[in-house]
Structures are given as C-alpha cells and as structure tokens.
C-alpha cells in the first residue's frame, strides 16, 4: 500500500507538471490562447512574401509595413466569406471611423489597416477593389492585398499561425483576429475581434512611441 501511495503521488506530480506545461501554468487552454501569449512575449517577423492589391503594386510585405511611425492592424479574410469576415469587415469599418475622427496630426497617426486575403487565387486585385468599395474602405487608411504566390501565402499563414480550414461547402473557417504589426514587420500582438478598442489604442500607443 505504501508503494501504491508513492506511485500515486509520483503520478500526480507528473500529471501536474504535464498539465502545467500544456496550459502554460494554467493560463491558456486553447492553441489560439497559446499563440497570443507567445506573440506577446516574443514578436514574430513576417517572412519574405510579396503582396499586391488595389493601390499596392507587387512588393514585399515587410516593405509595405515599413515606414517611420507606421503600425498596421492586419486581418485575414476571403471575399466570398459570408460569416466571420463580414464581422471582421464591420470591426475594421468601425476602426477606420475612429481613425478618421482621430486624424489630423494627432499622436498615433501612423496606424493603418490592412486586410490580407488568404484566398489569393480567387481574390484578384479587381475583386479586392470591389470588395473594398462595398465596405466603404478609405484607401488612405484601409487597404486590401493578396499574396499572389500560393507557397508564400502558406508560409505567411504558417508563420503568423493563421489556421484556415476548408468547411466542405466551398468556404473556410479561420481563427479570425486583429494582428498588430510594427514598422519592422513584426507581429507584436494578437487581439480578439471583440477587443477592437484595445487593439486600436495599443496600435496608436505603439505608433506614437515610434514617432518620438
């Protein structure tokens, strides 16, 4: 019985250690939670991929992101989407409105919005332009792009841990979120869709810091 008690105690310790490792000290339970924590602790640089879109000639993503005091809030979409991306579009519309209101030389002026399509084959620059018009995007603040090369697109999704799952009905489900990227092309924070206020304030704060 003593041996059993000892074995049980050891097993309990091992189980605790395993659970603690798996949940990062009982902070996170999902892969998405782990991803957000990892990014917050250690920024992730975007890989060398080229983007293009309406008003964006083909160029490296890092080059587009790079400008003094520039901070970009990125979301991943596909234009045929009728669920999550619509709410993402709504979130970006509201953020654009806030940026327009706050514009005019204020702090954190360098904040831009970028919607990247992961359905590059379908979402040509023309389709993206039509989609942007439909959402009332102001090209000075909110632009749309795709990664024309499928391999590069996959590499970008992998690096930023954007998981896209075909839903079997021609669409996709994906872990939609607000990704804040700095001027050095690093993903520095991932926010939930419901945290748009927080994401915007964080981006502005970062942009203002970059200006100084």
């Amino acid at each position: 019985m003593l041996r059993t008690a000892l074995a049980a105690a050891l097993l309990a310790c091992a189980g605790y250690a395993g659970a603690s490792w798996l949940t990062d000290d009982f902070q996170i339970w999902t892969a998405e939670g782990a991803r957000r924590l990892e990014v917050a602790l250690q920024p992730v640089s975007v890989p060398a991929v080229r983007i293009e879109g309406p008003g964006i000639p083909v160029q490296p993503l890092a080059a587009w992101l790079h400008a003094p005091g520039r901070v970009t809030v990125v979301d991943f979409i596909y234009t045929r989407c009728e669920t999550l991306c619509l709410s993402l579009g709504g979130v970006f519309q509201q953020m654009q409105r806030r940026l327009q209101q706050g514009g005019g030389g204020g702090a954190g002026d360098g904040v831009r919005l970028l919607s990247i399509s992961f359905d590059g084959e379908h979402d040509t620059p023309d389709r993206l332009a039509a989609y942007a018009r439909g959402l009332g995007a102001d090209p000075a603040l909110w632009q749309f792009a795709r990664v024309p090369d499928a391999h590069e697109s996959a590499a970008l999704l992998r690096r930023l841990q954007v998981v896209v799952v075909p839903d079997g009905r021609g669409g996709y489900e994906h872990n939609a979120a607000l990704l804040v990227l700095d001027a050095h092309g690093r993903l520095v924070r991932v926010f939930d869709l419901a945290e748009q206020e927080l994401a915007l304030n964080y981006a502005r704060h970062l942009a203002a810091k970059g200006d100084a």
Partner: protein
Amino acid sequence: MNGHRPQPRLGGWPMVAGGLLAALLALPPARALLEASMLRHMLLQAPLLLLAGALLAGAAGPQARTAMARWNAYGISGLLAAGGILSLLMVPRALDLALVAPPVEAAKFVLLLLAGAALRLSWQPAGLLVQGFFLGNVLPMMAVAGQLYADSTVRICNAYLLDDQARLGEWLIALACGFAVVWLAQVARTMVLRDAHAAALDAAPTLLLKK
C-alpha cells in the same frame, strides 16, 4: 475483462493484434484520416489506442503482473494514471498541438497506449468503490467538456470546424451518460447477486453445516 480465472491459452495473438493496431494507427494515412475531424480524433483514434494498449498489456506475464500489482494496490495508481492522461488529452490545446508538433503527437500515442494498459491491469483489482471514484471523476469531466464543446459559439481548436466541435460535444455527453448507466447496471447486478448468495446461505444453513 479477464477475471481472476487463469488466463485461457490464447497464445500471443491479442498482443500481436494490439501491436498491429497501434502500428496501423501510427501510419500517416490512418492518422490523416482519423485526425481530419475532431470527432474522429477524440472518439475513434483515442479509444482505438486505448484498446491497443489494453491488448498489449496482455503481454505482461504473471510475474510482471504481481510485481506491478505491488505498486498498484486496488488499481489506484493505474486508474489515477489513466484518469490523468484522459483529462490532459481533453485540453483543447493538446488536440491542436498533436497536429502540428510531432513530439506531442508521439507523446499522445504513448500516453494513450499506457492508459489503455493501465485500465486493463487496474479495473478488476479496483473493485466497485475505486471504480466508482474513477468514473465519478472522469465521466462528469467528459460531460462538462462535452457541454462546453456543444454550446461554444467560438471554435476552441484552430484546426477544426465549429459544427464538428458541437457534434463531438453531444457525443461526449451521450457517452458519459451511457458509461454511467452501464456501470450502475453492473453495480446493481453485483449487489443483487451478492444478496441472492447471502439469502441462499441464510436459507440453507444446515445444508452448509453438514458439509
């Protein structure tokens, strides 16, 4: 499972079957097929691995069993290990990680095989009380996790679809209830048999005394 009766001579085929099953499940096409859906990942692949582990545990000879039993009085260590492994693998991150991190996938296979073996070696020695304690922890956990999966409006695994998750939730609840009913029926049967035995002893004391 096997009672206290001496093992019938089946030869080594259950072990061979267990090993083959485990090897089959580890093949990339089988993994891709079973892990493409959350439901199959949790409710087909995991139970098959448990089964393979249980079959492989048959490889333990009487000596090994006696040695292990000393560390596993009333099956407590084994059931604790199995319960711990099952709850760890119910953490949603574990499912996603298993898909992208080969070491985690390997650990998942080994742990489930071990859990299956532990269940087989510990269930009978545990008796109703320890069994009840084990199920009283594992089944409610399964049902609660199932309820969360079924009701959640957000995906808790990045790699799986929302309706897949909801279906898995419903299955988890149903299975937890099913296991509970089956086990309680078994308890009732044992009780009735015990009572009948006792009544028979009461009814025929003289008969027994004569013997």
